């Protein structure tokens, strides 16, 4: 939609604003305010001084001189139009003003896509390229708000890795060379991070024995993860400790599972190399550290291996 620049000088500081009539393209609605004496009902007439629009103001009666009701200027062509507005009070007094009306084209800009595809937190998004048609190229586009963290608009392309989930209103403003501006009110839905897939059958966890460090008081264990499956496994790879005995707590945990059920289990992300891929036959080593509140009691847990997503 287009807007008038707003600055509408008139002899007596009258104001007139226009907005497009969406139901009837090319038909502009005008409102004007005319000062008058308090208590006097005014009527106003409008006659064009320049240009050739077939002008017809409806409901131009001004009550108490405060507000001129909506009026229609039909078929106004783009450009400046001057109107002599005369308001006559019922008591016989009258006032007049010269109004300038600048009529813009109704902006024909169309922006695609109609809606933004959904994003997933911590996963690459896009690129989504915006297309603009109509109006006069070249076009300028920008978001009228801050983008969600992790996303950026480069020229006409939106891309990045959103870091947070949620619904983000993203009004996009497009301007063409003719000064038209269009606005597309997008909303970007960013879903929570993808849950990692359980891959325990594909990865065998070779559990080593425990040892206690007398200096730190903590217990250590080495777990070797081997990809037994036929295909490569995309990381990150995490070793989850289910059913960890009550006497033990994982000291060097990466976090607690908040995505892949069961939730609240401690896990350790296991480095699998710079390419984040565990190839068939390849191994990765997890060095677990525990706090054991009852040294005589064994540390027990059920290992579960997750890969290909996040856990929190």
């Amino acid at each position, binding site marked *: 939609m287009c807007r008038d620049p707003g600055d509408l000088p008139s002899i007596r500081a009258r104001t007139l604003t226009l907005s497009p009539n969406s139901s009837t393209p090319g038909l502009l609605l005008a409102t004007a305010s005319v000062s008058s004496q308090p208590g006097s009902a005014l009527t106003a007439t409008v006659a064009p001084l320049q240009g050739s629009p077939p002008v017809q103001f409806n409901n131009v009666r001004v009550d108490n001189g405060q507000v001129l009701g909506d009026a229609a200027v039909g078929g106004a062509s783009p450009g400046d139009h001057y109107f002599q507005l005369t308001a006559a009070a019922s008591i016989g007094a009258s006032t007049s003003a010269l109004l300038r009306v600048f009529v813009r084209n109704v902006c024909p800009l169309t922006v695609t896509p109609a809606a933004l595809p959904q994003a997933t937190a911590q996963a690459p998004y896009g690129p989504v390229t915006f297309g603009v048609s109509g109006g006069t190229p070249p076009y300028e586009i920008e978001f009228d708000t801050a983008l969600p963290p992790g996303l950026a608009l480069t020229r006409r392309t939106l891309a990045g890795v959103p870091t947070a989930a949620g619904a983000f209103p993203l009004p996009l403003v497009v301007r063409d060379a003719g000064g038209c501006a269009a606005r597309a009110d997008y909303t970007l839905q960013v879903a929570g991070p993808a849950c990692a897939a359980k891959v325990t059958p594909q990865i*065998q966890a*070779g*559990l*080593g*024995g*425990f*040892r*206690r*460090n*007398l*200096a*730190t008081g903590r*217990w250590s*264990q*080495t777990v*070797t993860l*081997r990809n037994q499956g036929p295909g490569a496994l995309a990381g990150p790879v995490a070793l989850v400790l289910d059913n960890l005995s009550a006497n033990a707590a994982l000291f060097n945990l990466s976090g607690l599972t908040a995505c892949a059920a069961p939730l609240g289990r401690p896990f350790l992300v296991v480095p699998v190399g710079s390419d984040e891929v565990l190839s068939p036959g390849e*191994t990765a080593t997890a060095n677990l550290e525990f706090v054991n509140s009852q*040294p*005589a*009691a*064994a*540390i*027990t847990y059920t290992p579960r291996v997750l890969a290909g997503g996040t856990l929190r």
Partner: protein
Amino acid sequence: MNRRLRRMLSGLLLGVLSTAGAPAAVVVSLDTSTTLLDLSLFTPGATYYAAWQLTGSGQVNNTASVSAFDLGGGTGLDRDAGDPLFGIFTLGPNAASDAGVWQSSATLDLLVNPLDSLSLYSQRFVAGTAFEFLVDFTTNQLAGFPPDAFTFQLYDGELETLLYEVSLDLLSAGEPIPEPSAWSLVLLGAAGLAAQFRRRRGRPKSPCTLKGAPRYERISRTTLPCTSVSR
């Protein structure tokens, strides 16, 4: 059978013929070429804490019998009330001796069972030019559970810094899918053969060495990945 051949075969037998519950043995040896975790060398005259521990997974019984302590000219310090001790262990031949594991012909038996998952003994010594002991252990294990483990650790005299660690998973033979630690036992004998020939060519001794009991061979760290060795 000559001595050389006997050594070769015994090294192989250590891993290959080890069955569930059957004893196995290794010798842990350090000397002045051993690089410690803080990148210092094992230093004669320095005071260290030696700690032996057996940890269990709460499933089976296992024992580790430590003997043949050799301080390499160093001096064993008497037991102190502050020496960390835990769980079930037996000190011999005189359990009441202040000399502890440094007494003549000392033996230290560590035991874990489903209710006692940690057996720990530690004592200080002033280092000589070498440090060595023999450990025999049983290899009971239930599939699907972590193996019990024997660990030797060396700390500074204040017990503030771990300086050396060698850990052996007590894996029984016949595990469905042996992990590297299990294979290390299987490869123990073969590695011993390789070490034999290398040593014969005059290569310097590896910092971390495991050698067999009198019937087993010294094995180089460079060919045998000591299970969970830190140095």
